């Protein structure tokens, strides 16, 4: 599904924080995981994840390190910092509240 850029801007941060809450991942893995979990509904221009990751690393939400993955190839793995964990929790709560409210509104318009 194609989403407009404005809609995606806020979502990418939440998506990255949510996925990295579970384990450290590299950028392409984050993209694949997001696509898989959303049953391919969530597809964005893959390049856009890199500035987002850099910005989050700069603001202290993420830390990054190069290490070998299961395939034996070196990849840049991102993981949450303590600040990032707090932010992930806050974002998750905000997102859940917002989506619950949106479901009520959208559901109401159909009912």
């Amino acid at each position, binding site marked *: 599904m194609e989403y407009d850029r404005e809609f995606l801007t806020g979502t990418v941060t939440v998506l990255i924080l949510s996925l990295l809450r579970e384990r450290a991942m590299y*950028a392409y893995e984050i993209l694949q995981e997001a696509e898989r979990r959303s049953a391919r509904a969530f*597809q964005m*221009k*893959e*390049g*856009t994840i*890199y*500035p987002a990751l850099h910005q989050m690393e700069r603001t202290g939400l993420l830390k990054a390190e190069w290490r070998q993955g299961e395939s034996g190839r070196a990849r*840049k793995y991102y993981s949450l910092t303590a600040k990032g964990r707090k932010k992930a929790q806050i974002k998750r709560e905000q997102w859940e509240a917002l989506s619950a409210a949106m479901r009520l509104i959208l559901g109401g318009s159909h009912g």
Partner: protein
Amino acid sequence: MADRRPIESIVDHIAREAHIPGRAARDDLRRELLTHFEDAAASPEGLQEALKRFGNPDLLAQHFRDIYQWEYVALYFAKLALSVVAAVAAALAVQVLINLRVEIQTEALRLAPEFPKAAVRSVAVVFGLVTAWEIGRRPFELRRALIALSAYAAICVLVQAFFALGLQMFGSATVLVLLGLAASRFQQRRATVLRTFAVFAAATYLVHLGLSVPLGPGRALTASVALVAVWTITVAILARCDRLFVNHFTTFGADR
């Protein structure tokens, strides 16, 4: 094995245009993007699809520039300030050397009466040259050119407020800078330096002659030696500071 050249070219382009400070950080991004394509485009057939999914490289570079823009702007002004301070200090040092006299009676060193005017003119030449350098920077940007011209005009007005001869000095400096540019175009070759010197000497002599201010050819030549020294040193300082700045943000060559 897929042909990696289009990928490497795209990755290089992004790393170059992203304006990420520090070579290590740019190399890191380059490496990261290359690993992306290792995963996304393992086969030749997958390459075009991977490039399509990746998105517009220019847009991506713009996103990176947005992230680092304040650091870029701050360092740009720091570079400009450093160039100006170093060039003004050098210009004043040149004028002190040229105008230093030994007073025979007291055996003391003193500056010639012409020193204040010559010093202000040299500083004005430095500011004019910095302005021309910023306007001439490639790629040309109207906004940068207007800011440079406005700053030059503001400094001119400021100097006039403190020194009665400010406008006159900046006026003559502007003419000298324009003549110098016509003669050398920022080049530092011996032939262009000699041509600039000749142009300065002729201009200095003719302007004084036109204003009926006594100035012999000898003094016109001395004044021009000082101006050419100021000119050459300023261009060298601007080029060096520019190179430092560009190398901090770009790995694959300068923009001038």
